[in-house]
């Protein structure tokens, strides 16, 4: 487990060990911590867009004593077969899950980049720029994983923030459907569960069904 302050200090430290400026995207619990939705996370999820950037980051964390470990047992078995699985590095309780280009088939497209909520610049010897995904994209990513912990995280976001644009979430899922066949079904399942605790208008479900039929 790592808390908000430790996470920021860790990024500051990593930026001092970088050999080049790099840019990445914070997902999941890490992004939620930057929003202030929660105070601790099990793992730091980051997405890089180039091999050069991910290698620069790995080189820096290796110098700090992080070691690569297998992702078996952490993610569901079916995901381990995917090409876009993460590389995992641990040091004690702290864990980095590093993705390259996409997250289990989910692409970070221009719309997602434009929607980014915040940019955190950690300026050490070199610059580590971390962009934080919007709350809508965090929810979508968590909605399609099917892990109990992720559903709890969505609940946490919804309880604290009433201003969620569900249309953005569904529109993005429709775009991602081209690469990820099950995305709309997974999203609909999560939304059905959420309907028990929050109000979700039926027009949102109709939009999903209409999109799924078209495909």
């Amino acid at each position, binding site marked *: 487990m790592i808390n908000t302050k430790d996470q920021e200090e860790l990024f500051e430290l990593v930026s001092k060990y970088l050999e080049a400026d790099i840019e990445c995207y914070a997902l999941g619990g890490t992004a939620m911590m930057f929003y202030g939705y929660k105070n601790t996370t099990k793992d730091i999820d980051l997405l890089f867009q180039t091999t050069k950037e991910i290698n620069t980051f790995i080189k820096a964390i290796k110098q700090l004593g992080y070691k690569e470990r297998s992702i078996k047992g952490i993610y569901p078995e079916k995901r381990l077969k995917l090409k876009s699985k993460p590389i995992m590095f641990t040091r004690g309780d702290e864990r980095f899950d590093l993705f390259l280009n996409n997250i289990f088939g989910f692409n970070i497209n221009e719309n997602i980049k434009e929607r980014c909520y915040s*940019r955190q*610049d*950690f*300026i*050490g010897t070199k610059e580590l720029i971390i962009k934080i995904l919007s709350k809508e994209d965090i929810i979508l990513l968590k909605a399609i994983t099917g892990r109990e912990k992720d559903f709890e995280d969505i609940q946490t976001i919804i309880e604290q*923030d009433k201003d969620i644009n569900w249309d953005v979430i569904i529109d993005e899922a429709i775009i991602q459907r081209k690469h990820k066949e099950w995305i709309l079904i997974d999203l609909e399942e999560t939304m059905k569960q959420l309907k028990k605790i929050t109000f979700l208008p039926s027009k949102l479900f109709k939009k999903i069904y209409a999109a799924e039929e078209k495909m």
Partner: protein
Amino acid sequence: MNVITGTHTIESVAKELGIKKTSAINVISKLKKEGKVTVSGGGRQKRIYKISTTQQMKTNGFYDLVNKYSKEKLVPSFKHVIHGRYTIEQAIIDGIKIGDTRTMEATTYLFKKITNWKRLFNLAKKNKVETQVYNLYSKARKTMKCRRMPKRYEL
């Protein structure tokens, strides 16, 4: 504690929660310590409290720097937080990278505050925006009083 969000004064917090004004001050104080309140006003002006359910992120990046020095103020399109040292030169490059007309216009004012031309041109070279930097500088020179760029950096 009852949840209260939005823009409030002490009186409106007291009214909404059905408590005394002194208790409302205590409520605000507790939320402030949790980082969930930003305050504006004070002195002659009435204090207005913006209360949110999550901790409010304090920004100190590009938009704060530009809005400090530029006559044209910008509404941030993202929250920019710096951990470390952020310079005027880096802000100019960020302004060019954001790239919309209004941001560029506001960024020109930063040329008044440049102290390290070498840093600016090293950054411009790294980000491949030398021409844009020079064009923005030329525009700044025409429209406002700002420092002259050393000749060796002119394109």
